[in-house]
């Protein structure tokens, strides 16, 4: 399996022989050449963060950019900062939910959103062409450090929710920051919202305590903390503040798909409208949209697609089954701090518990399997599968891989944007049907593998 992924979503890899200082420097130079101006940078807490950030700084300075270093902070804090300050762009040094040995560069444009596919392609063209801006010795602005990005982010969120109502409820919150970029920001937000915070894994100097993907399987520490503290709700962060995992007051970790489900439920009631999500996300959003008089628009997987569509369609909410949700009135990007505030506001105003809210969500069973392949096998395998289905008259969508829809379930086969593998996802009303769909897909893939 390849340890490096260069794509329109940025550059991502296992630090060491795959993600080298030279590669990081050259990508930063490409960004400096492409965006050319004031660039904000931030990073998460991975052990490779200092090395990768140094590489990025040298590349940006050499291309003549004025760099503002925001230090360790959530990526959405940096994105909001870039948009508000009118900078030329930003680079986040973070691999989000990937394991600790990974790192990545994510590229942000002047409005604070991630590069779209065309911009990502243009950046890659600059990188491949290799002719970067070279600033003269007397045109190398010193790096400026600014620690205020989190303040601005929290202020923006707080002004968008009913702080009084949240404070009056005096929530007890269990919080797992995964020793990541939210370690300082998230407790501060919650304290401003009048919550009593019980926090673990908020030490920026420590290693990541567990797999940073806040899927239900990685929330066991948080579950134990919630029970010990008798908290009303538990929140689990990834390392950069995009994905959010939730544990109910009963100590039940919710499936990652439910983060978007809960937000869709809350926000659609307030403002019936469009929910933007990807082809791999649970059908529960369709049910919710129907209930509140809204609709669902699906895009290929990747948060740049979702956020772009949310803005374009003035959607009510957007997000992915991975636990990343866009709250449009805060900003057009996945923002787990905004999600926390919106959810707490609803629970406070309606005097409800998180498990009561969860019980309203439609029930589905989702099954996933990843198939590890060499990078050169992935597209031929998918193409072979697609060729078998293109001629048939069934409800098949080829926008992002191959997606089949039936009244009682669906199946999605696609190439990962971030790793060298094919993802297979099946969802149905019950376990046996979901397993049947998944097994069918795996058998088909086995017969066409290149």
């Amino acid at each position, binding site marked *: 399996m390849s340890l490096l992924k260069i794509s329109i979503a940025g550059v991502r890899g296992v630090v060491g022989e795959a993600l080298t200082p030279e590669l990081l420097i050259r990508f930063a130079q490409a960004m400096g050449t492409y965006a050319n101006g004031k660039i904000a940078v931030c990073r998460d807490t991975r052990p490779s963060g200092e090395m990768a950030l140094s590489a990025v700084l040298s590349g940006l300075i050499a291309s003549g950019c004025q760099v503002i270093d925001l230090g360790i902070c959530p990526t959405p804090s940096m994105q909001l900062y870039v948009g508000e300050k009118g900078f030329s762009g930003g680079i986040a040094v973070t691999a989000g939910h990937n394991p*600790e040995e990974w790192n990545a560069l994510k590229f942000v444009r002047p409005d604070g959103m991630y590069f779209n596919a065309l911009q990502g392609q243009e950046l890659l063209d600059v990188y491949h062409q290799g002719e970067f801006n070279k600033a003269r*010795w*007397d045109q190398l602005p010193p790096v400026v450090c600014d620690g205020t990005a989190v303040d601005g982010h929290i202020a923006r969120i707080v002004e968008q929710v009913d702080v009084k109502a949240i404070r009056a409820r005096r929530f007890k919150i269990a919080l797992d920051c995964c020793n990541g970029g939210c370690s300082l920001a998230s407790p501060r937000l919650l304290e401003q919202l009048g919550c009593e915070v019980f926090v673990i894994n908020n030490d920026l100097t420590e290693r990541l305590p567990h797999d940073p993907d806040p899927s239900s399987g990685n929330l066991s520490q948080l579950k134990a903390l919630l029970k010990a503290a008798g908290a009303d709700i538990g929140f689990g962060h990834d390392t950069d503040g995009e994905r959010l995992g939730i544990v109910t007051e009963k100590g039940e970790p919710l499936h990652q798909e439910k983060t978007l489900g809960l937000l869709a439920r809350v926000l659609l009631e307030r403002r019936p409208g469009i929910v933007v999500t990807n082809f791999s996300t649970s059908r529960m959003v369709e049910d919710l949209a129907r209930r509140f008089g809204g609709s669902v628009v699906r895009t290929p997987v990747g948060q740049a697609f979702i956020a772009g569509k949310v803005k374009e369609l003035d959607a009510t909410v957007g997000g992915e089954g991975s636990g990343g949700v866009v709250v449009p009135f805060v900003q057009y990007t996945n923002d787990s701090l905004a999600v926390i505030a919106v959810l707490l506001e609803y629970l406070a105003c309606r005097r409800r518990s998180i498990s009561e809210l969860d019980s309203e969500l439609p029930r589905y069973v989702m099954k996933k399997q990843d198939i590890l392949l060499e990078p050169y096998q992935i597209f031929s395998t998918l193409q072979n599968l697609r060729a078998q289905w293109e001629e048939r008259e069934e409800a098949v969508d080829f926008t992002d891989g191959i997606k089949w829809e039936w009244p009682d379930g669906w199946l999605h086969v696609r190439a990962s944007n971030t790793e060298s593998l094919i993802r297979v996802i099946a969802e149905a009303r019950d376990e046996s049907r979901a397993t049947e769909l998944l097994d069918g897909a795996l058998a088909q893939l086995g017969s066409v593998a290149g």
Partner: protein
Amino acid sequence: MRPIRTLKISISGVRGVIGDSLSPALLANFAQSFGTYVGGATVVVGRDTRTSGEMVRHAVVSGLIATGCRVIDVGVCPVPTIQLAARNLHAHGGIAITASHNPAEWNALKFIKGDGCFLSSYEAEELLRIYHQHEYSFAPSRRFRTLRYYPRAIQDHIDRIVEKIGRLKSGFRVAVDCCNGAGSLMSPQFLEALGCRVIPLHVIPDGRFPRPPEPIAQNLSELSQLVRDSKADVGFAQDADADRLAIISESGEPIGEDNTLALAAYYVLGKTRGTVVVNLSTSQVLDDIAAMRGGRLLRSRIGEVNVTDRMKTSGAIIGGEGNGGVIYPQVNFGRDSFVGMALILHLMQEEQKTVTEILAQLPHYSMIKTARQIASDQIPGLLEKLKRFYGDKKIDLQDGVKIHLDGSWIHVRPSNTEPIMRVVVEAPSLEQAEKLVQEIEAQLG
């Protein structure tokens, strides 16, 4: 053939023009080569005040961390301070980010060993091999070590010189020109710690050099004026990384870089008899001083590391180069302008004389240094031609060709750092020296 004039990768390190050949990726790869060479151990990093220093520093730090090195950043400070820090902090190596006397658009990496010396020529060859063959090592990121900062390196350096050479009793008035280089952050406090009253010039450490950073006579007119106007007892000038020292006499005259080492050796040999090591192009006044004070003089090839290697094997008590570089192992195994200042001020105090008066006690020679651009393929033939022309004279072939004449000498050699041929001539009088220069120019064609 069209050689590149903006990049030089050699055993002296990697040196080039920012915004041209010296790219961040090249610097990171070089740092990674060095991290590999020292086996991912502790490495001290420091830099001079050049505007490109921050960019270069970030590239170097990323390359070192990637190999698993524990990096200690000593910040902006003089090169001898970085060398001393490598020793004091028990590092296994160091990288000094400085192009020393080169113009402001240049920068360079200089590689230091755990004992504070620069890499010797064969060690540098090994490093170059790692770089050219891309044999860098990569540590897994769970073994990356957090960068540490050490802000006390300059104070350690001051303390060490005060301890080893001592404070002054006389309150000299000293004018010092730091060229807005790394010396700006140390020279004023250092001279005050010795007990001097300081008249500072160009001590804004912003890397925008108000004069060419090489401390040669024609670059020091402002300091000369300052010495005269302020009636200072002496004036000192440093280059951008503060390894070289030039002296302005109390009357405002530059005394010539060669005399910096001469005066320092005169003082040290007056205290202790021992061995002095200088390079082949250093003034013969050092031979006279060794004879006067009962010491022994040895000559090495050009280049700081060649001098220090010879000093180590011979147990020398002082050494250096004619370009104003004084090496005093009691303090530091590298050229150190601060050591030079301390030794010369102590000499003035002990003799109760001015610099001019002390120099009058020593023989006087005239030295002329010139340089010629000569295509690389012409150089070996030219050196052969000189050997034949001076076949009946005493010739030293350690480094280029050095011809010993009666009471004078000529040294012709290719530069280590620039694509030029250097010619140095010394004779008892300026006329004689000029005549020899004409003679050699005719041979070079």
